[in-house]
């Protein structure tokens, strides 16, 4: 996949909008949980892919949306990272499970943040695929608006679009970096 920098930033502008101010305090979430699964094949050994993906505090190295990252405890369970995003805003996420052997990382976002979602959790895993690897990235979340009749920018479609954008741009950039393109 080829993404010019401009195209990537365009997608990110769609993905990350400063919704923090609109997030209400914890209350009922939307009626229907949504999910997104994105996959990509990469011509690189799984260990090389996992070295990037499995470094919880190192996503600024490969995800084009991430400006910088800090984490409280590296790859340990319950480690919390703060991602500062290029489009403005931040995401605060903590590790729920980390399996080096299975090359699987599960993390969960603090409610709010830069994405128009709530109750967001995610799993990213690296698997062998032919001579290379496959990365599978899954997310589960509710839309940003917690009640009935959401505004368009906080409905189910907007939530799915935003998370899909994050995964697609991230995976494309990961592939480009690892394949040296």
């Amino acid at each position, binding site marked *: 996949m080829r993404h010019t920098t401009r195209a990537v930033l365009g997608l990110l502008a769609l993905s990350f909008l400063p919704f923090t101010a609109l997030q209400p305090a*914890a*209350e*009922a979430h939307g*009626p*229907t*949980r949504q*999910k997104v699964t994105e996959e990509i094949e990469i011509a690189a050994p799984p260990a090389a892919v996992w070295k990037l993906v499995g470094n919880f505090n190192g996503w600024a190295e490969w995800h084009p949306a991430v400006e910088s990252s800090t984490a409280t405890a590296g790859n340990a369970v319950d480690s919390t990272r703060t991602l500062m995003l290029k489009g403005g805003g931040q995401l605060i996420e903590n590790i*729920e*499970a980390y399996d080096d052997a299975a090359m699987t990382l*599960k993390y*969960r976002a603090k409610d709010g943040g830069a994405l128009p979602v709530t109750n967001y*959790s995610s*799993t990213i895993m690296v698997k062998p695929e032919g001579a290379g690897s496959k990365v599978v990235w*899954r997310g*589960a979340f509710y839309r940003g608006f917690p*009640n*009935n009749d959401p505004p368009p920018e906080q409905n189910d479609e907007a939530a799915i679009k935003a998370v899909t954008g994050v995964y697609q741009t991230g995976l494309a950039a990961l592939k480009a970096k690892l394949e040296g393109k």
Partner: protein
Amino acid sequence: MASPAGQALASKSDPVPGNAKGPSALPAGVAFITNQGSADVSVVDLARGHERLRVPVPAGPAGVAVDDRHQRVFVTSPDARTLTLIEATDPSHTRSLVLGGGPVGVAAAPDGNTVYVADWFQNQLVVVDVAGWRVRDRIAVGQVPAGVLVAPDGKRLYVAERDENRVAVIDTASARVIGHVQVGDHPFGLAQDGQGKQLYVVNVQSDNVSVVDTAALAVSATVAVGRTPYCAAWAPDGRLWVSNQHGDSVSVIDLAQSRVIATIPTGAFPEGIAVEGDLVLLVSWMDEELDLIDRATLTIRQRISLGRNSRGFGNFVWHAAQAAP
């Protein structure tokens, strides 16, 4: 857009794959599983281990309550804001009632004529008269009601008030809240033992289960389980099975010891759970499958594909032993 509350929708006559057979065709041991993403209910024959048919229902079905004595299945659809009745012996016959709000948790009373629906958005319990197919009453409860359970004798109703971190106890005869029990953080799914002496409350945020003595209305034990637990099912051998959404697993609790004795990896993001004979049935939302777990060996015996975003939140099993003749 949703129709006005209280309006009954026309029966659906859409053909369903596999074709519903006549009333005599329903075998013992059938699961009715809500598929929130595909707006239908998977009807799974447990003995044969396959999906018999899929029944279309209004958008976003989540909650389910099987009343096997009266051969009915009730389904909530929070997106369409409806309650749907499915005739269990002829699932192609359905009718839906617009309730408004956010109907999620649902339970059927033993008398066969009352269904209780938790309205997630309007903090009330909607009481539906089945014969008249209309709303009979609305009972105000605390913030964000989720799971609903009727005691075996039908006299009490329990409602998990998620954002109050407590369970409301309602006297069904007077339709009044008669007490509360403070539990863990964000209670969601509810279960009970066969006699209703203990209530099991699954606390999503504190990763534990509160065991409530229903006579004293007090927590008698708190048991730590996996990450983000959701629902529980009681088994007659004194074990409680708990689905862990973020753990991709089930925890098996020995109730006598008040501790987890096994944790079994399952399909991802497991939600609805039930006990049927020597099986535990577990619905995986992410993998869209029903896992049949052998209660004795603690291993998955079979995985059956379901519709999209399968949930099965509530009592989703038509039990072999209780099925009407």
